[in-house]
């Protein structure tokens, strides 16, 4: 019975586990995930410029 109650207590306590991997805030510092892109910013700008000229210029 004692062993059983100990096991039950251990099980209960394990349910209280909290992930300690927290993000500590620093003022003015973005600590989120990095936004990675397949193309460089200049390549993207060229592609989007072409796209703009295709679909958004005046008819």
């Amino acid at each position, binding site marked *: 019975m004692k062993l059983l109650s100990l096991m039950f207590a251990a099980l209960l306590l394990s349910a209280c586990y909290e992930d300690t991997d927290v993000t500590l805030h620093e003022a003015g510092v973005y600590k989120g995930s990095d936004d990675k*892109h397949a193309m460089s910013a200049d390549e*993207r*700008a060229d592609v*989007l*410029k072409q796209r703009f000229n295709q*679909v*958004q210029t005046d008819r």
Partner: protein
Amino acid sequence: MARMKFLCDAERCIECNACVTACKNEHEVPWGINRRRVVTIDDGIPGEKSISVACMHCSDAPCAAVCPVDCFYTTDDGVVLHDKDICIGCGYCFYACPFGAPQYPQEGAFGARGKMDKCTFCAGGPEEDNSAIEVEKYGRNRLAEGKLPLCAEMCSTKALLAGDGDIVADLFRSRVVRRGGRPDNWGWETAYKD
């Protein structure tokens, strides 16, 4: 380097709300959230004007300035995005934004709002481009596919423009010149009339 901007030509907008519908459909935006909306000035009065408004991806974004957890970042394209994993849903950005862009999906106990949601300029978020998690959290990433925001691309009158600010400004300037002057719906008289 390009700085992506929206511009709505009020002389062309016909208040069809197709931009709103396109945005909601493209990103499967939940019911009650409007990343984009059409605002009509002097509605019902002859001479009424409409503009389509969403996040304007400010160069010096007030939402980012007031965010207590700094969840905002600006991409190389000048698009203001945020990380929903860091957002605490405090609502400060909503009060700071002059365009009413930040939206909150929940109405819960103790004022719980849920993670903030806003227009992403169809650029997704910090997750892997067009991954399932990015689509679920932020919507589709059209910029990664070499496309511009759908709201502007499908605007039938080409009132809503989206792209590099310099190119958008050149196009709008040419329209104004063709019309023979500046539009009369914007200006101090409109902003400060009684």
